[in-house]
């Protein structure tokens, strides 16, 4: 069985015939070539595959592509400005060295953007709890938290 789906990915319309068991992460990476979305654990724990679905962060490895039919998907490739300017959260990760090997970074940035929009405050405890769905195997959390706080402040001021 294949199912016809139509969705928006980073602002562009996408139509595909897909096997129902195709994961959203596989659609993005293998079919659309958007390999910025990383697959770390593939067991919905590490959050490296986090993308935004209709504005909310989700783990794209824990979702079928058919479930995204009709939705608006935003990946790490879609957040920079039209002239290529880094998103404030990306700029903050660079400024504060919020990455070591960088594998978790796309998911961290996507999760952090939603956190910046929804968190009641930007206290360290709030940020750490808000990043519970994202793991960094380098254990680089200290600078990730710094980066998220700075990025969130920049988003709120911008």
């Amino acid at each position, binding site marked *: 069985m294949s*199912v016809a789906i139509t969705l928006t990915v980073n602002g562009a319309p996408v139509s595909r015939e897909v096997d129902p*068991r195709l994961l959203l992460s596989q659609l993005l990476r293998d079919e659309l070539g958007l390999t910025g979305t990383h697959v770390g654990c593939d*067991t919905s724990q590490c959050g490296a595959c986090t993308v935004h679905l209709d504005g909310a962060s989700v783990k794209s490895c824990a979702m079928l592509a058919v479930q995204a039919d009709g939705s608006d998907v935003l990946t790490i490739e879609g957040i920079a400005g039209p002239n290529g300017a880094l998103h404030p959260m990306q700029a903050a990760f660079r400024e504060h060295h919020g990455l070591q090997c960088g594998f978790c970074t796309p998911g961290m940035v996507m*999760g952090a953007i939603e956190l910046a929009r929804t968190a009641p405050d930007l206290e360290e405890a709030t940020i750490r709890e808000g990043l*519970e769905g994202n793991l960094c195997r380098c254990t680089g959390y200290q600078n990730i938290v710094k980066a998220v706080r700075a990025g969130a402040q920049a988003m709120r001021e911008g």
Partner: protein
Amino acid sequence: MYGFDYHRPAALSDIVDLLTADEDAKLLAGGQTLIPTLKQRLAMPTSLVDLSAVPGLREIVAEGDGVRIGAMATHAAVAGSEVVRAMLPGLADLAAHIGDPQVRNRGTIGGSIANADPAADYPAALVALDAVIRTDRRDIAGAEFFTGLFETALLLGEVVTSVFFPAASHARYAKFPNPASRYAMAGVFVAKQGDVVRVAVTGAGPSVFRWDAAEAALSARFSADALVGLVLDDDGLNSDMHADAAYRAHIVGVLARRAIA
């Protein structure tokens, strides 16, 4: 993942028909348990029947002396609902601490309770608050819904459509999350409605259960002090690499006191 067919009808009756006609079809809500289960090849359904196109199942509305939460309402929606926060802040708080933010954006109350994981959080709320589960065909009392390990009173093809929670003068949940999975090693929901006190325990046994002795003590005096010295019998409690039965019995007592204070 093994292959399967996929259906997403917009009519609830079509969902019920598809599930009734094929006992190996599985209902898909938010998929936060089902999709990982499929990926590990722990299940081999012939088809997935997606509930997400059926209208009206995400609504959260005040109704009489309580709140009705649609089966497809996500944990994030429950946590952020002004209706729930005003009427049952303890329930909103429970929802706000399920899994992690990404899981809460997809996982649903209907999916959670129909799956009946022994370490899930919602079952404690449903039992303590005497919730009523509405399905496509009937209402089921919270006390009768959870029948065992991953077992519910749902019949073949029966679909949860909403859960009604009556208001309470006290409703609070305390849990000890497993540091890795965030599932409850134990969780206790204490609710007081009029003179009735219920203490529901999840994560500690094969299915949610009420702690009668704690309820009796709290009915006499609704104070954390009333539970001092009271120890849950650990016979039949879960025992695993994370916590043995005696330890779980101990933390249930601690959590019950936290759920009152």
